[in-house]
């Protein structure tokens, strides 16, 4: 009870978390850190979205094998009305490196889940688009650069058999490719517009050209004071 009275989390929010099968691990001024078994992840996320008003921010995969033998997939939410962040994590057995997708519940999680798969190698099962997102198309299969056993200066040989795949356009639609350079801005991105005459009926997006390994560098070689210097160079505007 002592903890509950000191808690700045509204009691109904706390109760609500428990109802969602979510276990609160740590509570801090502006942040709740909670865990859920991966089997209950989708129910928990639905609960956070619908009952707590949670706004999905991003996912983060982490290689914790040196600590507990697992990969960890964290989902970040903003509980804006409570001025709080919620981090919900599930640990994943490397022998079964898969986790249920949440993109069906939150379309905005599409890229974040694919990125976890590209870099850590945890597959979001049931995801509508399991193409690569951030890795180049000729990156070798089954090689995950954010795993701790991948060295920061490792340069794997190209795997040219891995081809670019563009989504199938709707029937009778023409494809208008724009890029990889000059779609409005002079930066590399490849947009394929699917059109019926002038009307756009769909599109395919391929970005993430010119990757720089910024997070890998931050996770391996840099000190705290060096990271802000690098972080600022992710973007100049």
């Amino acid at each position: 009870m002592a903890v509950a009275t000191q808690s700045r989390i509204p009691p109904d929010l706390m109760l609500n978390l428990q109802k969602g099968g979510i276990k609160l691990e740590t509570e801090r001024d502006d942040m709740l850190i909670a865990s859920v078994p991966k089997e209950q992840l989708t129910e928990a996320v639905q609960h956070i979205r619908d009952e707590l008003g949670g706004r999905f921010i991003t996912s983060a995969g982490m290689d914790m094998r040196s600590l507990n033998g697992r990969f960890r997939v964290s989902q970040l939410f903003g509980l804006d009305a409570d001025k709080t962040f919620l981090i919900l994590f599930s640990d994943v057995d490397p022998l079964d490196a898969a986790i249920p997708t949440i993109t069906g519940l939150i379309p905005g999680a599409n890229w974040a889940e694919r990125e976890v798969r590209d870099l850590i190698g945890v597959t979001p099962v049931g995801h509508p688009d399991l193409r690569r997102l951030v890795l180049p198309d000729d990156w070798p299969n089954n090689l995950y650069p954010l795993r701790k056993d991948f060295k920061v200066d490792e340069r794997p040989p190209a795997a040219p058999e891995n081809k670019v795949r563009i989504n199938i356009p709707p029937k009778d639609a023409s494809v208008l490719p724009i890029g990889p350079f000059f779609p409005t801005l002079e930066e590399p991105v490849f947009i394929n517009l699917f059109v019926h005459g002038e009307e756009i009926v769909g599109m395919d997006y391929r970005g993430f050209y010119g990757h720089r390994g910024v997070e890998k560098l931050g996770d391996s070689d840099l000190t705290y004071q060096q990271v802000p210097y690098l972080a600022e160079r992710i973007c100049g505007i």
Partner: protein
Amino acid sequence: MERIHSHLLWIGLACHFIGFDTLFMQAWRIREPVMWLTEYLTGNRKTYGMNKIGGVARDLPADAMERILPVIDKIEAEAVRVVDAILEDSSLRARLEGVGILSTEDARAYCVIGPTARGSSLDIDARRDHPFAAYDELDFEVCVEKGCDIWARTLVRIRELLESIKMTRQALKQMPDGPVMADFGEIKPYQIGVSSVEAPRGEVHHYAVTGPGNRPFRWRVRAPSYNNLQSIPAMLRGAVIADAPISVGSLDPCFSCTERMSVIDVDSGEVKVYKREELLARKKL
């Protein structure tokens, strides 16, 4: 100040995308003194090198008030004239109103942020919702518009531009004295930290896990364009090709913000291989 220059930059670019180059030049002319101020404050026009763990690299110069306030006043007077020109221009409005629609439901589903979200009725702003720095000591309005189109995104940025000028004034007048850096010693490993900062395009999130040896164990960054770009398919469906550039441009996207993460050697030879691969893939369609 970052938001002032960034929104003026966007107004200029947006006008350029739709062929209104006079306003493009005017917006960028007004923006230039902001760059002079950031150079005076930080030593750099952009990529300021000010943020450090524990504080900032330099204090305000002693004459900051006298140097900055008159420039801000002038920028405000000129910005108001540009804003009036935008608001009263019927052809500009016809070009942007009802174009690049992102419904409130789609905005929420794709988790967009910043002016893209606020132009689609989503009342979110990390400066108010997750206050950082000294934003909880400033009086400001979160600018939300209901139009869900490019015009609404334009209005949000225009209002934020003027709001930011007022906030700069407030911050300067309220700036306390004191050290600008705090010492930190050894940080315990495996602690989790999250920071959310409302950048001109929306929230930038840094998620960090501390590691042994006073180095990060995991550092995850999410720039605002990462989520805003995912809403493009919803925005373009049913639109016409001529509206695609300004629609994409209305997100004020930063493609370099999504170019991160993997370890790859991007020399010119490799880029060439890419073009060929993609052309071949195209041929098969």
